[in-house]
């Protein structure tokens, strides 16, 4: 399931959906939250913009790619857009599989992808009326590189 939405999500609800099949042995979830501090600046709110149409297309493709690479039973991706407050949930990725290794690897891969390729942009508000676009972290790009490197080596 893929969802780009302004509404909040509920971890338990998503988890219960992921564990429905009787052969699920492992569920890994990732939740990303709005932190009160980023790169030394205090943050009071966050606005998330996306590229409607491309976002859903990109997420559908990456879920298909993940399913081909790992033997997973279920996958949920939820990404919020719009205005978010401190400690709000931003993103959820949940993977169900027979064994834990696939669930961990697939969940981390999905998050690396979301951070580096999916068209979402964060604007941080540091005080009322003052906000700036968040710069991409170099470490996020390195994180995705490890997966493509792995792919290239496997070929």
């Amino acid at each position, binding site marked *: 399931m893929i969802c780009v939405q302004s509404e909040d999500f509920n971890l338990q609800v998503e988890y219960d959906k992921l564990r429905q099949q009787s052969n699920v042995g492992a569920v890994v979830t990732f939740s*990303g939250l709005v932190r009160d501090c980023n790169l030394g600046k205090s943050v009071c709110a966050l606005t*998330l*913009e*996306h*590229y409607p*149409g*491309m976002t859903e*297309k*990109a997420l559908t493709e990456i879920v298909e790619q993940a399913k081909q690479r790992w033997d997973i039973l279920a996958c949920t991706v939820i*990404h919020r857009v719009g205005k978010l407050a401190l400690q709000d949930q*931003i*993103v959820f990725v949940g993977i169900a599989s027979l064994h834990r290794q696939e669930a961990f690897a697939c969940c981390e891969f999905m*998050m690396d992808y*979301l*951070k*580096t*390729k*999916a*068209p*979402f*942009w*964060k*604007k941080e508000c540091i005080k009322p009326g003052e906000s700036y*676009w*968040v*710069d*991409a*972290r170099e470490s*996020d*790009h390195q994180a995705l590189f490890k997966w493509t490197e792995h792919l290239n080596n496997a070929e």
Partner: protein
Amino acid sequence: MIKVLFFASLRDQLGISELQLPCEANPDTNSLLDNLKAQDQHWSKALKQKQLMVAVNQTIATSNCLLQDGDEVAFFPPVTGG
């Protein structure tokens, strides 16, 4: 016509989110970008950022990409989702 979109900080810098460009002979993403930069100094500077990302018909283009009439091309800064 080629539909061109700008997002996030790039849109703010350019002050525009969308425009239509006539389709020239044998267009590609590089020539399109050159045309946009040629608009004026401000555009030239905004579009010169090293990490500029390009998507053609809602798929990331990692190298120069041929275009045809009716294509949608988006330019944007590195993404920061998740």
